[in-house]
């Protein structure tokens, strides 16, 4: 039995070690840094020779992942700024990494930008110093998620909508409203899917804007306590009909291919992949509109290479590079000219202002209501996260 004793001890020791390793990794604390007012640059100097970039996967490709996908090498040759890049998986990870001050430039989604600005991690950008800025679609400039008090905090990169996807064999007639995943979801019980993130609460709020006008929701990212409670109730009623939530887009492709999901939120890029494989799905921008994302290139307030950073912002917004980068990721480009370098602009409705106006771009919910109300306090992202966990139960 002696051997079993040692086995048991080894087992216990291994388990405790594993548990604590897991614990240790969750214990990192970040250095405190308060918001400091920073001034935008007024002129450009000589480039510094290097620039460090933090971005979503697929945004900064230098050919090391795929030799044919490279828009960094030419930048390095042209400007003499060597690029080092790091990718992140979630907006929250991006915020934590920006706090280290190790990065000059960041590509952030709307659910991160306001938090970066509020935390003083990024600085206003002087768009006059960025020639490519002029060509960018007007409906992407000076929006709630990329500027504060009329000051631009970055350059738009690409955008897309969270569309409604359905299996054309199973879901008939073709839906035109989000009600198919909310009030009428029970007819597809167990086969509805939804995006697994607190920001999905905005999709429910958007639905309530049309279907429960008495709640007075003007912006799905500005919800007071009553409005949030209504959205949470809607999502709780939806949950029994949901087969699974998705956050990894490959997981959704698979579940639509196998028939485990037949209706739910999606991205255009997912529909494109499914269509290529011959799966019978279609997407629609429902009559209520949709939520979506619009990413922004921002410059750190602690940037060590501001001139190289401006050079990068100009480079990535230039039509040909923007076309390459947004096509690789699967989203609409930020300028009309970029479409001359892409043949799939139509599929992404690039430049269609009418289509774009139906999209409520991801914005961080903050206590100071983003719809301009001052008589109430809005629910912030922390409350949304708690609510989301409660919805999933």
């Amino acid at each position, binding site marked *: 039995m002696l051997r079993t004793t040692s*086995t048991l001890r080894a087992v216990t020791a291994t*388990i405790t070690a594993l548990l604590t390793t897991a614990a240790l990794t969750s214990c990192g604390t970040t250095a405190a840094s308060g918001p400091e007012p920073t001034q935008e640059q007024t002129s450009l100097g000589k480039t510094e020779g290097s620039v460090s970039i933090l971005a979503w996967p697929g945004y900064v490709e230098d050919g090391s992942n795929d030799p044919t996908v490279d828009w960094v090498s030419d930048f390095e040759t042209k400007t003499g700024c060597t690029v080092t890049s790091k990718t992140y998986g*979630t907006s929250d990870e991006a915020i934590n990494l920006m706090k280290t001050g190790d990065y000059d430039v960041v590509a952030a989604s709307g659910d991160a930008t306001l938090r970066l600005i509020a935390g003083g991690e990024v600085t206003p950008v002087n768009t006059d110093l960025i020639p490519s800025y002029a060509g960018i679609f007007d409906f992407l400039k000076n929006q709630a998620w990329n500027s504060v008090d009329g000051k631009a905090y970055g350059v738009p990169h690409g955008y897309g909508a969270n569309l409604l996807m359905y299996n054309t064999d199973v879901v008939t007639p073709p839906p035109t409203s989000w009600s198919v995943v909310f009030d009428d979801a029970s007819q597809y019980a167990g086969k509805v899917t939804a995006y697994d993130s607190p920001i999905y609460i905005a999709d429910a709020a958007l639905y309530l804007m049309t279907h429960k006008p008495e709640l007075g929701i003007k912006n799905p990212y500005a919800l007071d306590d009553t409005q949030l409670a209504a959205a949470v109730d809607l999502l709780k009623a939806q949950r029994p009909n949901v087969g699974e939530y998705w956050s990894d887009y490959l997981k959704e492709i698979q579940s639509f291919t196998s028939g*485990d999901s037949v209706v739910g939120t999606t991205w255009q890029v997912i529909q494109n992949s499914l269509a290529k494989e011959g799966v019978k799905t279609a997407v629609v921008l429902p009559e209520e509109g949709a939520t979506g994302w619009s990413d922004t290139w921002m410059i750190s307030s602690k940037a060590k290479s501001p001139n190289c950073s401006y050079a990068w912002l100009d480079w990535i917004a230039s039509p040909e590079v923007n076309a390459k980068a947004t096509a690789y990721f699967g989203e609409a480009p930020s300028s009309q000219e970029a479409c001359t370098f892409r043949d799939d602009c139509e599929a992404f409705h690039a430049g269609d202002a009418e289509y774009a106006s139906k999209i409520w771009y991801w914005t961080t919910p903050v206590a100071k209501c983003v719809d301009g109300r001052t008589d109430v306090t809005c629910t912030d992202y922390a409350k949304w996260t708690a609510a989301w966990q409660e919805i999933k139960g």
Partner: protein
Amino acid sequence: MTTAPSAGMTRRSAAYLATHPRVRLALILSAPLTWLALVYVVALALLLVTALWTVDGFTGQISPTWTLDNLRTVVTGALYRTVTLRTVGVALLVTVIDVVIALPIAFYMAKVASPRAQRLLVIAVLMPLWASYLVKAYAWRSVLSQDGLLNWLVAPVGLQGPGYGLPATVITLSYLWLPYVILPIYAGLEKVPNSLLEASADLGAPPWRTLSSVVLPLALPAIIAGTIFSFSLSLGDYITVTIVGGTSQMLGNLVYTNVGAANNLPLAAAIALVPIVIIFGYLALVRRTGALDNL
């Protein structure tokens, strides 16, 4: 070949160590003990301390002001109670299933199979461990899917697979942890002398009596070692449930979303204390049964 002085050094220190067993022991143990203290004790303490801190909602910074709010939230929140019960239920079910499957396999391997078959079986049991955890979980995702293998198999008899959800999670976890349960039980059964089984038979005991009065009591510590594996591994798992669990979430998922999406490390730390407390409780329970004393 080293030079003379250093060779002399080596010999002198070797001679010193040979005559001072305590120094020798200290040198051997200092590295692993330091590691254990750093990774185990310090990390656990940090976890406890973080759970007592709070996070600034606006800037997302952790502010080290003492508060019991996180612990209170975890203890009183209905959400955490539901998820804890669900997680413990899944872990217990996985453990029971694994023990029921592992016992006959381990017994066959240890007592019945020929030495050659025994070696082959050990390899067969170890084989799944060579494949990545993720590959196996995704394999089960495709097996359990709507048009997957399982539905295809049971369709002729008019049945339907469980689909994604808690049953799928239990099935997948039982599969994943089975080798960890079989191996300790097999090792424990191998230690049971054949002479005892023969003696029991000679004294007229039928097989089931030999099994329940001789084999099981002797193998109990090994079985408990196996259950500790499957129970604790299930308790901390959050990946399988995301892959095949449908909409369900377990304690690990709550920790994960609080670290990732919510950026609330203190609350995540407070939630992480729940499985630690449960495992300590389980070990205490195992101790009370006396199984640990028999070792």
